[in-house]
């Protein structure tokens, strides 16, 4: 039981926005979509939501095709804010929730709960255009979760928010997962994906470059980061066999190496030359992986 995307492609004339995408997103997990601008994330979301039909392939949610009979169970936060600027927050959120099959009374009750949770209960009777961008984003988020969807699709949910509100929203996302919601979200910000997602995929120009669980992806990437802070000159390590990339930091050097054995050999090489204050072998960050995978195909 999950969201299954099977060989989905979407072509606009000659341009292919999504190319043979296959994914399986398990229930009650958070799944991250990563990709540069124009990678096909929004198009994929629109296909999942049934806003667009795929040119080929199909999407099923718990074994059933996604269409307007299932739309009540799905919540969507579009990349750009989508609210009536001139209407009051309460009015339009209740309207949007009723379109998802919720009763007026329930919607009003839930709305107050969410506004209080986001510490903005006074916004209920304000017009959306009077709110700041970040606060509009909170309202937008409420609009997508008010009807307690079992599948929640968030397109760039954290854009335009200050760090405090990002934490507020992240916690809300995690709580929703705990209560059984399957969440799919996209972001440019790798740290958000690293903190939230069990599984993820990286899209580039409509194709999947990488997919799997965060752990697997990091392990299979193989390369690691080695950070050395020392009191003597270690710049000769830049040319050391097995070092792929290097960057000098004020306190020392950061190297990307091909594997643990390279670190071992570097350690042996440097010991005895002077005082080493830090010698750390770290997992690659998602950022490194993304740049490596997507950047490579740019060249």
């Amino acid at each position, binding site marked *: 039981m999950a969201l299954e995307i099977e060989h989905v492609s979407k072509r606009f004339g000659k341009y292919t926005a999504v190319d043979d995408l296959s994914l399986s997103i398990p229930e009650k997990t958070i799944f991250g979509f990563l990709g540069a601008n124009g990678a096909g994330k929004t198009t994929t979301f629109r296909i999942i939501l049934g806003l667009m039909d795929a040119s080929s392939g199909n999407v099923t949610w718990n074994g059933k095709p996604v269409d307007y009979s299932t739309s009540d169970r799905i919540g*969507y936060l*579009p990349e750009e804010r*989508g*609210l009536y600027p001139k209407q009051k927050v309460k009015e339009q959120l209740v309207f949007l929730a009723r*379109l998802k*099959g919720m009763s007026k009374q329930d919607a009003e009750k839930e709305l107050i709960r969410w506004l209080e949770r986001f510490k903005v209960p006074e916004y209920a009777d304000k017009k959306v255009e009077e709110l700041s961008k970040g606060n509009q984003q909170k309202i937008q988020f409420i609009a997508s979760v008010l009807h307690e969807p079992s599948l929640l699709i968030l397109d760039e949910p954290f854009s335009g928010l200050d760090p405090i509100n990002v934490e507020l929203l992240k916690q809300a996302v995690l709580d929703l997962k705990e209560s059984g919601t399957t969440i799919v979200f996209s972001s440019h910000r790798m740290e958000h994906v690293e903190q939230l997602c069990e599984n993820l995929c990286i899209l580039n120009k409509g194709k999947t470059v990488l997919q799997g669980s965060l752990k697997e992806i990091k392990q299979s990437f193989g390369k690691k980061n080695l950070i050395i802070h020392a009191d003597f000159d270690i710049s000769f390590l830049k040319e050391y066999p097995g070092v792929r990339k290097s960057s000098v930091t004020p306190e020392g050097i950061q190297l990307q190496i091909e594997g643990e054995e390279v670190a071992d050999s570097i350690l042996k090489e440097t010991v005895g030359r002077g005082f080493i204050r830090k010698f750390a072998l770290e997992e690659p960050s998602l950022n490194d992986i993304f740049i490596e995978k997507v950047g490579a195909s740019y060249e």
Partner: protein
Amino acid sequence: MNKFWIIFFHTFLNKLKTKSFIVTTVITLLIIVALANIMNIIDYFNKEDKGEKIAIIDETGVLFEPLQYQLKGIDKKIQLEKFTGDETKADKQVQNGDFDGVLVLSYNQENLPEATYRSLTISDVALVSSLESGLQQMKTQMTAYQMNLSQEQLTKLYEPVSLKKVALEKDAKTEEELNQARGLVYVLLFVIYFAVIMYANMIAMEVATEKSSRVMEILISSVEPIKQMFAKILGIGLLGLLQLALLLGVAYFSLKQNIDSMEGDFFEVYGFGDIPVGTLIYAFLFFLLGYFLYATLAAFLGSLVSRIEDVNQLVTPIIYLLIIGFMIAMFGLVNPDSPFITVTSYIPFFSPMLMFMRVGMLNLPIWEPILGIAILVVTIILLAIFGAKVYKGGVLLYGKSSSFKDIKKAMQLSKNE
């Protein structure tokens, strides 16, 4: 509640609550009440106006009485006063405001009356023309007198020709009936024309607003675009009917209240005394059909727009269509049975106005309006099917340009391939 009705009521109630809607409705109502009471308003201001006072310098010594007699029959309010001083003195009194003007009466070489009128300005056309016709009548009588015509001969000379108009068609309307129909049809045509332009524009704006604020994406993730489009069209339609009912109702009652003061006026000639129910039903029907036709068109054109500023650009052609239809209808009011009108009344974009005009003015066999309505209904259905396809893709289409080329793009977007 069904999602269709949720959107329907949401659209309806939201528009109803907007300030601009309330303000325009109230202003229009005030204008209607003012127009219906126009006679009372004019009378109120005229109470102050005692009529023009004119000094007459009668150089002939005999023309004053006949002129006064003639003018009484033309405009009772004009007061003539014999002035004994000379012209300079009279001019001075005019400048002081004692008189509105000076009329100098004299004879010309042929011994016929001649006059000069002097006043501060000669902008009061009504007064001058009253004076002119008074003088003319006086002159005619004097000429007749000089020619030794008897009063009887004179009467014969002025008796109007009798021209009876007989329509050979059994049910054809008499001239009087035609005039009555013309007035009512004229007013209703205007209402249809304005209402369709206004509400179609409202639809296009609504759709464009939802699209540019991107709320559309959320809406169509909950409801089929087609359902959403028609709920919107019907919601605005109900709003339009409510507004029109309010305006026409107020117009009807305030006219009825004032009908006494209008007796014998053009209101009676143009048949507002008793309104034929049939014409009203046709007006209602053709307004609805015209609205659906143009609203569907406006909705899918509105869906192509990314920014609200571009709405006008795409709606303009629709408005041209309506203006052309209205122009033809105006021509048709004078010539309702011309073949050109007959043919164009079957063109769906024009028939809401033209077929209505013909039904109101002529005694058409029943199949003619029915055929017109049938063509209109089929066109609306075809347009709705086509429009729904464009709409489905259009609402997801964002770009810099908003042009008719986008129709093709939008269709592609809504298709599978």
